């Protein structure tokens, strides 16, 4: 019974993109045997130790674990159905930061407020419906007041941090509601099916085009580790390359002095070269998340290039190099407000933008420059202006076009992917993992 559950759990992890081999499964079984099932949190940590290989997999693991080893099964016996009463108790639990009480309240709330449908086939539980009705966010002021009333001493410095702290607790409670709603649906529809659908992917597999706001924040956080990883890999590559290869011509010439015997081989060391990089980013709404992330990544790798210049456009081109800083909020937003990237309308227009670049900034591109064009090539049925792109490609060392859309969508509707792809190589680039691999290929040595 437990063996079946464990293998089903491992299967679900695999279905969600975690690489778990048979030997890990055996380890996990040993863990269950050693720890027993009495302590749920210990079991969670133990299984995580045996099955996980990195912290970025943890969110997927936790969500799946909650489905296969649920906190409780079935319905609660005496749930309260009064919204007002639930809110009162939730306020108390938030004030005390009582995790167990919050988890219990989440389950009660889902049962009382989250149910929808009235036939067995369409029945279900919805986390968003629960939260819409309960509205835990309105408790903030109440909890703060309660905390202040409890305190006998004069208010001190930490008081100004309390609001944020309570917001985090409320956010945690929202997560608990989501977990319990998924558990209830899983009981209705079968755990395996829900586990494959309802669990969010790991950060590096989030699709740029469909990323929500939370996920974009997470992606931004992934920039630094990813850039560091790329930079160390590059350092290793340089070290290996510095051994040099034999320079045949010079070795032969040297061998003349020893009667044709090549006693002293000559090596050819490639002169280290840092490429220049020019980024042309479509920052219109549809692909902004992708451009934003790529700009941050390139910016973080600045040391690897001798020069990085970033241009943004919707339908007009503007240099935005100075506006990008990894420390600040969304760069794309700043660019939209501070740079002249839009003309009279707000639709993206690749032809005009490329033409403008070719007119005004062509000297930014030279024989050492790699040009990256980021965008979905959806030009709203305007002239794609291929000559401008040809002009750029002729001057640059290499040009790559990264397209966040899957190739199956290229050329559908107003996409000018194929015409552009006939001039410069176009790569699909849908998530951080693919982007990392592409940037690595661009880097020197």
């Amino acid at each position, binding site marked *: 019974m437990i063996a079946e559950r464990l293998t089903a759990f491992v299967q679900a992890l695999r279905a969600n993109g975690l690489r778990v081999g048979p030997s890990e499964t055996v380890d996990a079984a040993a863990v269950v045997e050693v720890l027993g099932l009495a302590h749920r949190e*210990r079991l969670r940590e133990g299984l995580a130790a045996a099955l996980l290989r990195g912290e970025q997999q943890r969110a997927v693991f936790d969500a799946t674990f909650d489905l296969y080893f649920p906190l409780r099964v079935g319905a609660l016996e005496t749930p309260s159905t009064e919204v007002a009463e639930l809110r009162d108790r939730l306020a108390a639990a938030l004030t005390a930061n009582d995790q167990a009480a919050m988890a219990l309240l989440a389950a009660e709330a889902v049962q009382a407020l989250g149910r929808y449908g009235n036939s067995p086939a369409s029945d279900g539980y919805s986390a968003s419906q629960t939260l819409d009705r309960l509205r835990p966010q309105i408790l903030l002021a109440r909890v703060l007041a309660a905390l202040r009333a409890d305190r006998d001493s004069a208010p*001190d410095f930490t008081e100004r*941090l309390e609001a944020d702290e309570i917001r985090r607790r409320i956010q945690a409670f929202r997560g608990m509601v989501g977990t319990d709603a998924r558990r209830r649906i899983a009981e209705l529809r079968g755990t395996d099916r829900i586990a494959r659908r309802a669990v969010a992917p790991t950060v590096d597999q989030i699709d740029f085009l469909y990323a929500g706001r939370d996920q974009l924040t997470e992606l931004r956080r992934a920039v630094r580790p990813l850039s560091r990883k790329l930079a160390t890999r590059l350092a290793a590559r340089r070290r290996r390359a510095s051994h040099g290869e034999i320079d045949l011509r010079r070795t032969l010439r040297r061998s003349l002095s020893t009667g044709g015997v090549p006693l002293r081989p000559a090596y050819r060391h490639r002169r280290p070269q840092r490429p220049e990089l020019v980024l042309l980013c479509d920052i219109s709404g549809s692909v902004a998340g992708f451009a934003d992330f790529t700009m941050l990544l390139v910016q973080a790798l600045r040391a690897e290039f001798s020069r990085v210049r970033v241009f943004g456009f919707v339908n007009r081109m503007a240099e935005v190099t100075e506006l990008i800083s990894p420390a600040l909020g969304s760069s794309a937003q700043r660019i939209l407000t501070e740079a002249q990237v839009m003309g009279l309308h707000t639709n993206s227009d690749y032809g005009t933008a490329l033409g403008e670049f070719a007119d005004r900034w062509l000297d930014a591109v030279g024989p050492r420059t790699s040009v990256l064009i980021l965008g979905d090539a959806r030009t709203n049925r305007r002239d794609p202006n291929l000559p401008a792109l040809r002009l750029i490609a002729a001057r640059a060392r290499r040009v790559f076009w990264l397209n966040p859309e899957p190739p199956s969508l290229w050329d559908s509707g107003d996409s000018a992917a194929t015409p552009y792809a006939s001039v410069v190589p176009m790569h699909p680039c849908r998530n951080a993992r693919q982007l990392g691999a592409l940037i690595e290929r661009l880097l020197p040595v």
Partner: protein
Amino acid sequence: MTTGFFTSVDEVTTRLAEAGYLASTAVATTVFLADRLGKPLLVEGPAGVGKTELAKAVAAVADARLVRLQCYEGVDEARALYEWNHAKQLLRITAGRDETWDRARTDIFSEEFLLPRPLLTAIRGSEPTVLLIDETDKADVEVEGLLLEVLSDFQVTIPELGTVTAERRPFVVLTSNATRELSEALRRRCLFLHLDFPDAELEERIVRLRVPGLDAALAASVVSVVGALRAMELRKHPSVAETVDWARTLLALGADTLDDAVVRATLGVLLKHQEDIGRATEKLALA
């Protein structure tokens, strides 16, 4: 197969606490499993959360010898495993000039001329041992290959002598700051623990344990400010070590409550980048 230091998760928690290491559920559980299943424990996490301290604490409570291999770029077999004592070998050869070649050759590759380095030391001993392989991610990929043999079978092959197998399995802790991706093969041989910043309650206990003179209310305030800093987007978040440093600083300054002036004056203890300090000042609304 087990190293046999502990008999239950609770025992791990209490004994580590006696040695001054307050373990979370995750830490206690994985330490117990590593001990029980005889597998190495790979500890990853930001700097200053107590990865190395964990190995030291385990060694202290188990009354075991701590063997430490500090990895760095360029660490090699000779530094990690063993070396031949060439000087002594030369002396041996010169000392016995008139003996036959066969004797001389066999002699100079014997135990006597072997210089064991941390990995071999940890495997050969018969007393309880904790092997700490620190900052594994700093070492080159070749060293990982070396570790594979050591960590999966707890044996080392010396071409001239044969295979040395551990009589008694050491308790192995590998630490990594994840600056480089460790190989799949190495990860598969280990139990994985991501050691993160502790939750507020645990951190408060740590601060009070390490800085005994600190007032309880002030300790709570310290932890909540550090928590707020960690929630910000900073280049480097304050670690536990820095929380403790800050608490000590406040104690030394004789501050009994936090106010704008004190926090502003001491923020440099927590944050190590000027732009982080600027950002924190703004976000905390320091007057």
